[in-house]
């Protein structure tokens, strides 16, 4: 890790998006507040990465359903970000003397908070998003940015060529200079995908944000407007290669995958390693209890859980109850959910405080589907009650209570 000077870099974390592809999981919460890995929320990753990288001024731009996120971040204490100078600041849109606006786009969100950044007078601004699971030392990226004298450095990672059309692709010279940016190209020239992590030299960024705001046709978005504008103007744009685990958790399936990755011994994802810990706000729950009748294998289980049933290849978040005779496989069970006797949950995401009653069957095995596209993870939304012996099929997205015996 390289050492940053005081106030050298301010991080701006874009946390205002809805994450609509997560469906019922983000009905009441912003995407960065979505639970992950048993005791974390997605936002723990950028926040912990910041503090571990020595960046202790973080602005969190919120807009969509911010209440739970505000509560969760609080004073920033769990991430050691309650500081006398800097620390973590929640930045919602606000009323100004000449009216006020919602954040129109990612660039506009930062434009509206230019005064916040100016207060610290940083040399660099790091722009982050709250939708990825990864551990990254931002100070190394800032060091590279300084060494190359770039105006903007974009973190990239190699993805398989066949997946490249799903990403924003950076076409670079051998030295990493970006000469072209293509959003979701059908025929990619490169497989370097943007990770949505940018370091800007602040003076330059400020200039582009102000000009972008004057352009009425702009979407006020980093990917669509700011980056192309800087490229067109011939600013020095560098790609910074990242190697390691990085996963977008913007869809139901990728969120499910990223959680189960924690169980993969080959990936060896350790979130509490002494050199790069991921911090989170945790509650006051007694340790988990595994009863005489339980069968637990290949799973992560959190504080406050009570397990008397069968559990395989799953992640249980805090305070989950799995009653005797219930089976949970290949699933994520979020905080406070209860799986009653004889219920069978597989290939599913069960959100907070859901109650799955006796004998209900949630989700299906993909092998039952000859055409894989017909299959999907079953998702039960926040606080839903699934009646006795009800059936929830693969790919279902449930936001209302399911009656006894009902098939949905």
């Amino acid at each position, binding site marked *: 890790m390289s050492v940053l000077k005081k106030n050298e870099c301010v991080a701006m974390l874009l946390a205002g998006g809805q994450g609509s592809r997560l469906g019922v999981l983000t009905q009441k919460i912003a995407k960065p507040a979505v639970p992950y890995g048993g*005791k974390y929320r997605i936002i723990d990753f950028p926040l912990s990465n910041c503090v571990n990288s020595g960046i202790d001024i973080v602005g969190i731009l919120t807009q969509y359903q911010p209440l739970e996120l505000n509560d969760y971040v609080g004073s920033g204490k769990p991430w050691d970000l309650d500081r006398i100078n800097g620390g973590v600041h929640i930045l919602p849109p606000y009323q100004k003397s000449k009216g006020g606006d919602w954040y129109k786009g990612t660039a506009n969100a930062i434009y509206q908070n230019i005064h916040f950044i100016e207060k610290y007078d940083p040399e660099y601004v790091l722009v982050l998003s709250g939708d990825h699971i990864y551990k990254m030392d931002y100070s190394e990226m800032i060091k590279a940015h300084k060494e190359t004298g770039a105006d903007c450095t974009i973190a990239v990672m190699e993805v398989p060529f066949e997946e490249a059309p799903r990403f924003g692709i950076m076409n670079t010279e051998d030295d990493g200079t970006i000469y072209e940016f293509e959003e979701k190209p059908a025929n990619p020239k490169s497989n370097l995908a943007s990770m949505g992590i940018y370091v800007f030299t602040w003076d330059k960024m400020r200039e582009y944000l102000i000009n972008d705001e004057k352009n009425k046709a702009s979407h006020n978005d980093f990917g669509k407007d700011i980056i192309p504008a800087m490229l067109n103007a011939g600013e020095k744009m560098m790609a910074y290669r990242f190697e390691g685990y990085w996963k977008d958790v913007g869809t139901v399936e990728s969120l499910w995958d990223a959680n189960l990755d924690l169980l993969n011994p080959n990936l060896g994802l350790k979130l509490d390693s002494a050199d790069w810990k991921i911090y989170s706000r945790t509650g*006051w729950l007694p*340790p988990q209890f595994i009863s005489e009748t339980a069968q637990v294998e290949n799973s992560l289980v959190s*504080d406050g859980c009570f397990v008397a049933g069968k559990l395989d290849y799953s992640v249980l978040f805090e305070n989950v109850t799995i009653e005797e005779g219930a089976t949970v496989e290949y699933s994520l069970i979020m905080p406070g959910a209860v799986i009653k006797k004889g219920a069978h949950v597989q290939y599913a995401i069960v959100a907070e405080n859901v109650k799955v009653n006796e004998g209900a069957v949630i989700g299906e095995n993909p092998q039952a589907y000859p055409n894989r596209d017909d299959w999907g993870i079953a998702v039960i939304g926040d606080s839903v009650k699934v009646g006795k012996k009800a059936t929830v099929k693969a790919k279902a997205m449930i936001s209302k209570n399911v009656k006894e015996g009902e098939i949905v």
Partner: protein
Amino acid sequence: MRSNSILGIIYANVHDDLLPGLTEKRSMASVPFAGRYRLIDFSLSNLTNAGVSQVGIITKQNYQSLMDHVGSGREWDLDRKSGGLFILPPFVSGGIDDGVYKTHLYGLVGIMNFLKRATQEYVVICDSDVIANVDINEMFNDHVENGADITIAYKYGRLPKNHDKVMVLTVDQNRNIKSIDFLKERANVNHSLDIVLVRREFLIQRINEAVAEGKVSLSRDILIPALDKYKIMGYRVEGFAEIMDGPKSYYDLNMKMLDSKVRRQLFNRERPIYTKTHDSMPAKYCIGSNVKNSLIADGCVIEGEVKNSILFRNVVVKKGAVVENAIIMQNGVVGENAHVSYAVMDKVSTVCDGAELNGTNQKIVLLKKEQKIGG
């Protein structure tokens, strides 16, 4: 009740000698318990759950681990601008006690300035060897409604084994305490849980009087003589409430946490037991693990077999290992094909690959902090 009308006082070093192995490097208050707690968490949480916002912890020796655990008091919501948590180390006053108090009374004498400077009307004094979830708010309301001068929390049950120092109370039907005795033999009685509620000024006066007369004991020289002059009430605690009274009781009381009914009484949602939080991952159960009837804390990685046991944070049980009827504290390691039964492994201790640490139900073995066997 005004939330700041009670001052809390906790004795950190009570009967440390009863747990010789475990208190070699720590106070009774910081003895680990039930997978993630320290004993003081119970009294601290009882106080803060009743809205107490200023707590003094009277320490005597080995209190480094305690200070590390309580920190600024934030986890108990005691990181306050006004009030909050105070660690009160021994203070050489030149009195008969040379600063390191030997009795509960002299523990209070040593913090007289703290008691005098406090602004709360009432004081609750607690010991740190009591494991109970006590509604001190209700105890307080009871005290005020009955116009009591002193209220002592008690339970009905078998007297702790090694305690001839536990007050046995004779309580009438109106819960007035009629006599306080010390019994030599164990019996089912109403015995004190060493939680005492009094008006602060009243306590200071009684202490001053006792000290002036050369008295040394809180129970014998203040509480018992007060029976004739003042209204002393009992507040009966129902449910799980136990006093730690020796290595066997340390083991047995931990094992009681495997009883769901006990856990529900102790760890209820209305009055949570707070403790220092850490950043361990959830516990990981690997392929081939087999866990039954056990309490497991965050950060554990289990590949082997665990039965009727309590694992604290970050314990590793490797492949082929068997852990039965054991308590393994934070960062303990049980190596491949090792066998641990009827044992207490203190923090950061290791049973190496293939090694054994086996006690019996009658004789629990202790592997001391940072020690290693086998290998």
